């Protein structure tokens, strides 16, 4: 397993994005957390560095310089690169990492299920700047006000009407929901068929009936926008039905799409934990308690030892899940473990770091306080902690995990 060796490609990604996180992301993280604003300038800069909004569709060619599509059986490096990179960006700021990579959620079903024309259209819709001079971003709209974990309960409907589908429904907590230039929306084309009728559509901003809604004020990851999106008699041409309908497996494809991003989400959580850990180590090295260096107290030193064990264990799970994906192995159980354990470690490490830091870290926007707030989302989105455990448990008992 190459994570234990010096894989030059992964080391390169780590180094490049690690430096980007420290030099570009960290200095502005607090401001965007306070303002609850997207870091548009930085996103543009990241785009220039190859972190494009269409990277997933492009097969990460921009980052690696290599086109990895083609021979499906050959091992790839995409998943591992994605994890190494995500950890580094989230080490800088998880909210900004999600702002930079948020479009990937929409790009991933397009890459997985979209036809060549649809992929081209998706790329076209994300070219250039939007009306505000910002880079264009995409949103993936699956969740609804009353449907989060149980996506078979979707109530958004896409009614066929000649060459079009007419979409009606409300989407909730959509990343980039207010600002996106293109949406991938999931709707039921045949409610009588239940979950089998669920399909994805590419919908361009400005399409009549597509109404970006209210932006949420959140506990954490405030640099990443979350908003409602409404569809009111929104007419979408049937060409924009992902995969042309015939080849799509509908909802099960949606679930596979989430499986494929899970290790990366776990990697982001590891990045947060590592950020808090490094911060604490630095403070401990400079600090004293009643005249004795903090590091001489086992109360503190052993906490750090414990955190380091947890972080390393979480990272090993993340990389194993990614390595399996890159080697075309079924990684559903491992991906869920990586995501759920990463979330747990990020929450544990930030919480314990806060307790050790005491009063100073009660300040709103103190780095560790912010990371503590950011960490919580990793147990909620992309499948809650309970849903991950449900997948793991089902897989243990040999039941189809998703």
């Amino acid at each position, binding site marked *: 397993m190459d994570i234990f060796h010096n894989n030059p490609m992964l080391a390169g990604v780590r180094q490049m994005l690690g430096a980007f996180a420290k030099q570009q992301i960290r200095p502005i993280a607090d401001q965007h957390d306070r303002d609850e604003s997207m870091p548009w300038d930085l996103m543009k800069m990241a785009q220039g560095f190859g972190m494009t909004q269409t990277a997933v569709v492009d097969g990460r060619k921009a980052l690696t310089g290599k086109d990895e599509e083609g021979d499906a059986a050959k091992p790839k490096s995409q998943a591992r690169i994605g994890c190494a990179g995500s950890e580094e960006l989230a080490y800088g700021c998880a909210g900004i990492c999600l702002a930079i990579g948020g479009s990937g959620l929409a790009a991933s079903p397009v890459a997985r299920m979209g036809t060549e024309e649809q992929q081209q259209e998706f790329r076209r819709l994300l070219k250039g700047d939007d009306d505000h001079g910002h880079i264009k971003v995409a949103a993936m709209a699956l969740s609804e006000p009353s449907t989060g974990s149980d996506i078979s309960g979707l109530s958004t409907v896409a009614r066929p009407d000649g060459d079009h589908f007419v979409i009606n429904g409300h989407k909730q907590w959509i990343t980039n929901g207010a600002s996106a230039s293109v949406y991938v929306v999931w709707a039921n084309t045949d409610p009588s068929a239940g979950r089998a009728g669920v399909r994805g559509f590419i919908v361009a901003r400005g399409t009549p009936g597509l109404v970006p809604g209210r932006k949420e004020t959140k506990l954490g990851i405030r640099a990443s926008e979350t908003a409602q999106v409404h569809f009111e008699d929104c007419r979408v041409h049937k060409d924009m039905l992902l995969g042309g309908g015939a080849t799509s497996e509908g909802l099960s494809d949606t679930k596979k799409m989430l499986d494929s991003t899970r290790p990366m989400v776990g990697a982001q959580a590891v990045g947060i934990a590592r950020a808090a850990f490094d911060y604490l180590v630095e403070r401990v090295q400079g600090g004293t308690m009643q005249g004795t260096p903090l590091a001489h107290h086992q*109360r503190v030193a052993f906490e750090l030892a414990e955190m380091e064990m947890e972080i390393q264990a979480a990272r090993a799970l993340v990389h194993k899940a990614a390595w399996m994906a890159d080697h075309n192995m079924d990684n559903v159980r491992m991906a869920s473990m990586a995501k759920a354990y990463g979330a747990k470690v990020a929450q544990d490490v930030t919480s314990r770091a806060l307790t050790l830091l005491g009063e100073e870290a*009660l300040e709103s926007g103190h780095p560790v306080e912010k990371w503590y707030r950011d960490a919580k989302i990793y147990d909620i989105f992309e499948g809650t902690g309970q849903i991950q455990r449900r997948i793991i448990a089902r897989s243990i008992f040999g039941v189809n995990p998703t």
Partner: protein
Amino acid sequence: MDFALDDEQTLIAQTVRRFVDKDVRAWAADADRAGAAPPRLTAVAGDLGFFLDAVPEASGGMLDGPYSHLRRAVRGHELGRGCAGMAALLETNVEPALAVGRWGSAAAAEALFGSLSAGGLATTARDSRGTLDISRDADGLRVTGKLGPVPALGTARHVLLMARCGDEPVLALIDTAGGRRAPFVPSGWRAAAWGTLTLEAASVPAAMILARGPAAADATAEVLTWYKVSLAARAAGVAVSAMEHARKYADERVQFGRPIGHFESLIRLRDDADTGAAAVRLMALHAAWQADRVKDDSTRAAAHDAASRARVMAGDVVDRATVDAVQILGGYGFVNDYPVEKLMRDARAFAQLLGDERFDRILAVRAQQGA
């Protein structure tokens, strides 16, 4: 042994609960967003006897006879159910008032009680890491360094300070006019008018030193006992509140064809939180009961130990309960329209104020060992 509240305690619990359900909960979200308590709080809570309940009657307050920490814990638990930030403001005068009433000079009593009777606030700070620079100055002290951040210091006129001058513990009343006060924007308890106070060779006259040496060590143990009991009681209230919201939501929210509250893993989260909250409440009440009965070194040590244990548990339980309440609400838990993300932020101060309780407990054992 009798675990029932007496008539007076029951009346207090009911009165504060009504106040919390009618006013405090209604104000909590706005106060959190604004970072300030509503101006009405002072008048309404004042009518209910807050702010002056630990000031002797003879000095313009309402305390006639011994103070009851048990009653305070009962009301603190109810206040915690409402809003941790407002609760901190309503409880802030108690330690300074009791300490000055017990150990203060006539001058200290006049200064503090005069200010409190006129509607002023006081607060409590502790130099838990020993970073203040304190030296003797004739009979008084000179203090350099930063106090806080602690609640109410943004507006308080006086701070009850627990610190050390060299090897000697001291307990002193600091006039904030002698330093630079700065507001502090906290993550939680945002209604509590937080602040810091920077002192530069500020002089603390002898009359404002409540105790020093071994007497100060004893007095500090008592002040910390009061404070930690109150913290623990309020924390249990916050945990209860988190689970009230979670239970209501879990009963209504349906996923996979049934209320999410029927899933065993969520029942377990709620049950653990309820168990923890019940344990902390009892520990806080028991520690309060002991605090009311301190009469010598051994009862003082026992009360402090009980309060410290209550607060260790309180910090863990309220953190877990509020994080799990957010979890139970899922995506809604993460957004500010619902009350639980505030509770998660509010939980942190219970473990972080006045230093790390686990560290305190370890250092206490090492001191006994002569290390």
